[in-house]
């Protein structure tokens, strides 16, 4: 990601798996180089939380082992902050 300003709007160059495209960063003002963001119609609307992504994936890959030992559910790790 590289930053620049266009017509008074903060923009960034985003790498979409090899294709790079500009996106407006006004809604993720603290986006930093190397962050992963979700882009919709040319606007970054959310930053992907790398820790949560890794934790959810780890939870999913380990799920069956947990199922086999009849671990209590549903508040297993990885999806913290789920219900309210």
């Amino acid at each position, binding site marked *: 990601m590289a930053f620049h300003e266009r*017509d*008074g*709007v903060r923009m960034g160059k985003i790498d*979409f*798996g090899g294709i790079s495209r500009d*996106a*407006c960063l*006004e*809604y*993720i*003002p603290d986006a930093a180089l190397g962050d*992963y963001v*979700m882009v*919709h*119609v*040319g*606007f970054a*609307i*959310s*930053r*992907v*939380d*790398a820790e*949560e*992504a890794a934790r*959810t*994936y780890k939870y*999913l*890959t380990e*799920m*069956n082992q947990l*199922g086999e030992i009849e671990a209590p*559910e*549903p508040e297993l790790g*990885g*999806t*913290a*902050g*789920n*219900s*309210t």
Partner: protein
Amino acid sequence: MKYVDEYRDHAVAQKLIAEIKRTVTRPWVLMEVCGGQTHSIVKYGLDCLLPKEVELVHGPGCPVCVTPLEMIDRAHVISRKPGVIFCSFGDMLRVPGSNGDLFQVKAEGGDVRIVYSPLDCLRIAQANPNKNVVFFAIGFETTAPANAMAVWQARAQNIRNFSVLVSHVIVPPSITGILQSPYNRVQAFLGPGHVCAVMGYREYEPIASRYRVPIVITGFEPLDLLEGTLKAVRQLEQGRAEVENQYVRAVDQRGNEAAQKMIVRVFAIADRSWRGIGIIPKSGYKLNYEFRDYDAERIFEVANIQAREPAVCISGQVLKGLKKPPDCPAFGGECTPQTPLGATMVSAEGACAAYYNYGRHLIAVETAPQSAEAKA
């Protein structure tokens, strides 16, 4: 691509499906709200992998599909006016209005342009000071901050030859409408991940508790959808009705507050008509009064144009989760993505187009007796 490939892992998907099978004890009907989720479910055949007790029905969250016919007719009238450059997201160009689509207007000499971002329209407006640039501002809460920014920036930069034809809708009133219908079959929702990335998910909590319905905010990759389904089935089996967040890597409870702030600056809540469904009170956005100079409906005096849906199309019932594409006699025959009768066949996110593009019209005949049996 990172955060995409991992969530398409076949072995993990099989584990999730096994866990859903182990959890389910009776039939449940779940609705995925977003068209993007529908697309992913049909593309990866997730609905065919789930145990027969878990039925997925497809929701109203396809922005192109729910844009009402009269709004498309208004777009056509504006785009045919001399001196107008009409800009839109690409999907909207193929949606049939009462008299053809925007491609036809373009073929007849209208200046209709596809834009990637609404901010592109401001550049077009600056480059064409003698033309009126109109942007077709459709979409859900996900798109609203982008469209709001275009209007905000137009005023900040004193761009006077730009306006927007607003047809914005919001998700929560449509979910409430589905739940209030006497014909409703939906017992749990896979909530809209991208919408909640912007809005958070606080506003779904009163819906979950009032209607006793689990709502699991869910992402768009196969593993997201399977995990969302598992969480919803667990809640149903345990008699819980809560808002849960499966899409933790992109969504938190509060959402994107900077984006919400811009929406409120530019838009106000308004009654909106949904294609195939009708008017839902307080279900969308209109421009705030202070931005009336950017309101294309007012500038081009098209607000009184009305339209009537073709009778054969059942897209309204598909959008409400009451019917599925193969239930329509026109599906795959008279109605295809090349010759769409209704919006659910036009948009890539529409349920009918997803079923057709992934070959479901070829197996529709084979599955029909099964669904009759299931009903008996």
